[in-house]
């Protein structure tokens, strides 16, 4: 073969300075997170206390689990708007089984039923948005209406009289009340699931396929990746995570209020956390740890508002502004990279 010829590779972007090599886009969330963390530590003595931090983490555990799994859905090029509804549905299914069966058997069966319900809904979302070719935004939006309807249907079997489903049984509540090493069990579960999902995305072939499916679905398909299967898996994980969160939060509360707004708020908060963390809603980019920081950032902000006694009215406004900034930063950095 002829040598020297064609070896020359000219690339103007070949020698970026160290400054340019820092992936600013990826780590952007770290700065506001630290800023708010430090500001609150100084501004409110209660903030850094183990009591307050523990409470924040315990309360966020469900949302963190859902958000971590939903991050995978977004990276793979999908979106799941039904997570809030699934979360409520699984809680109701779990609660109904516990109320009906009772005892430790009931608790175990309830947990299993809740998780299974979440998994099945996730699979359905995945199948509808891939093989049936319905846009995932619409598919999961429609699904969330269906699921919320089904929630009311199921809850009729779990309610005693006209109240809410109440599962105030120690056989079940240990899930939320146990505190291994002084940290609540939900926090531990969230930690384990987050680590598993992060490693799955970061270090496995599946994770690589998730990025490829969202980054360029056609290229991934021609490279021999089963894009539909990858996307269905992410939806299934997201549904299952919603199930875990529903069960955990049921054990914490321990009742299910009948209020669709709770489902909607969860969905929006999760998406907000993912976006603020810097995962692109266009797919192909993102990371679980960023979502965790995004969710905790929002939680910290709310916590700070409470600690500093600022009118909660401003919470929503602040969050909206932050989301806009995050998305604008995303668009801006995409533009710059071209």
């Amino acid at each position, binding site marked *: 073969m002829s040598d020297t010829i*064609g070896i020359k*590779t*000219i*690339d103007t972007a070949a020698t970026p300075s160290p400054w340019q090599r820092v992936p600013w886009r990826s780590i952007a969330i770290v700065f506001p997170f630290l800023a708010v963390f430090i500001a609150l530590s100084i501004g409110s003595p209660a903030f850094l206390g183990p009591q307050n931090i523990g409470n924040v983490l315990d309360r966020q555990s469900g949302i963190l689990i859902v958000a971590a799994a939903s991050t995978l859905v977004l990276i793979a090029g999908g979106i799941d708007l039904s997570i809030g509804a699934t979360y409520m549905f699984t809680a109701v299914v779990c609660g109904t089984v516990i109320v009906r069966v009772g005892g430790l058997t009931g608790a175990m069966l309830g947990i299993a039923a809740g998780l299974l319900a979440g998994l099945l809904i996730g699979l359905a979302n995945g199948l509808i948005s891939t093989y049936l070719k319905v846009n995932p935004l619409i598919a999961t939006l429609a699904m969330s209406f269906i699921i919320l309807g089904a929630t009311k249907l199921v809850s009729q079997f779990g309610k005693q009289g006209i109240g809410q489903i109440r599962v105030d049984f120690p056989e079940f509540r240990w899930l939320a009340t146990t505190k291994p090493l002084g940290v609540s069990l939900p926090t531990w579960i969230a930690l384990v699931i987050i680590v598993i999902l992060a490693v799955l995305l970061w270090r496995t072939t599946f994770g690589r396929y998730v990025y490829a499916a969202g980054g360029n679905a*056609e290229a991934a398909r021609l490279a021999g990746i089963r894009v539909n299967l990858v996307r269905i898996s992410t939806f299934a994980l997201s549904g299952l995570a919603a199930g875990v969160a529903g069960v955990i939060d049921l054990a914490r509360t321990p009742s299910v209020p009948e209020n669709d707004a709770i489902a909607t708020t969860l969905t929006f908060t999760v998406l907000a956390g993912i976006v603020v963390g810097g995962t692109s809603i266009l797919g192909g980019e993102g990371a679980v740890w960023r979502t965790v920081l995004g969710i905790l950032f929002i939680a910290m902000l709310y916590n700070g508002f409470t600690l500093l006694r600022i009118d909660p009215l401003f919470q929503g406004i602040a969050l909206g502004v932050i989301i806009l900034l995050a998305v604008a930063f995303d668009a801006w950095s995409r533009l710059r990279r071209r």
Partner: protein
Amino acid sequence: MPVPASAGASQLTIELRGVGKSFGGVPVLSGIDLRLEPGSVHALVGENGAGKSTLSKIIAGLYTADAGELLVDGEEQRFTSPREALDRGIAAIAQELALVPGLSVAENVFLGREPRTLGWVSRRKLRAAYVALAERTGFELDPDVPVGSLRTADQQKVEILRALARGASLIIMDEPTAALSAHDARLLHGVVRQLAASGHTVVLISHFLSEVLELCDTVTILRDGLLIRTAPAADETEATLIEGMLGRTLGSVFPPKPPVPADAEPVLRVTDLVAPGVHGVSLDIRPGEIVGLAGLVGAGRSEIAHAVYGAARRQGGTVEVGGEACPPSSVPAALRRGIFLIPESRKEQGLVLGRPVRQNVTLSNLDQVASGGWLRPARERREARDILERVTVAGDDRRHVGALSGGNQQKVLFARALQRPRRVLIADEPTRGVDVGSRRAIYDLIVEQAAQGIGMLVISSDVEEVLGLAHRILVIRGGRVVGEFAGAEMTEENILTAAFADPTPNEDA
């Protein structure tokens, strides 16, 4: 067909003096002095990364120069947007066309400048204005057809008409014929000549040197952001242009063809293949043989490739690799049997642009750098580096693949193909938008693979390329094989005759 200089086209002289531009501290252009004469066709040639596109974008107002000045009819201008350039009569037609597919030809041409009656778009006036414009240029396009249904060549005509409708006197065309078949390219050449004859200036960026020499009056050679020389095209040859672009001479354009073992059983046997756009194709490839698929754009060549690879739904026929049948419509199954496709469009079908080079290399063979679904970063790094070295891509492989030049992106796709031993390799338009230097490297890779006994199927709209590489050429028209040429029969004339035999190729028959 002489076209009278239209009344609307004012003649424009553009002059650049000492123009420079850097991105993030890296200079991509410096000290450019250039004069564009009205009524001329002016070519900009150079390797990818030489600064052609940057230069044209400065003229078109997409970028603002950091240094030097831009004079329009002797008057200094600082364009800060394409709109300002357009107001002075300068329009650019990008490689990626910017048309609205759902709107009709006429609506696209007058987009944003629709003739109105009391604020309502007047369809009648729109049509009349379109007809007047089309007559001026001699383009025959149905004004009412949605642009999305047109072929690329016709879409380019729409872009040109749009530029003219906005009163452009200078039109910049970036690789206008890259996506065109030989026939359509010739049509476009006619258009360019007409434009020049009517007093417009055309700036042409092209990798096809024969096209440049044939079509242009003046050629400017750029290399590494510097202007090497501007000379009349009549004074240049392909060799002098290549030497100017590379700063050295290029050996022969094509490597010698390796011998094919004469009596070997075919490694790929396709029988009566039927798929969308493919109507009963049979073909054989022997190990070590390079088979070229020639034909017009839209003839069904890529469709054949996709059907063989299992990426399109196969409706009939069989595909066998080394005697082993491939199931229809499964890319993973085709990969297991040893077929690999390097698709036509790097950006849409080949690469995940936002991911690092390394991950793009290993994408279709992740299991090889993983154990039980668990990635082995060290193994991946080692393998990717080895292969990237083989395909001559230098630099940090953690960079986004989108940051590479077209030629290097194509080599990354070849790297993906080479990561595992294959039996059949299909390369669809392997050198489209690739600079001269990388082009030879890609030819070497193709020949090297064949020499190792891999069956190669090379699809190209560049007839010279097919002739230079292939042992045997199949001509495709309307989703069928309409000609097969080998040995002395392999001539440009035979291929073009077969490709054009039917004056109106029936694409959806």
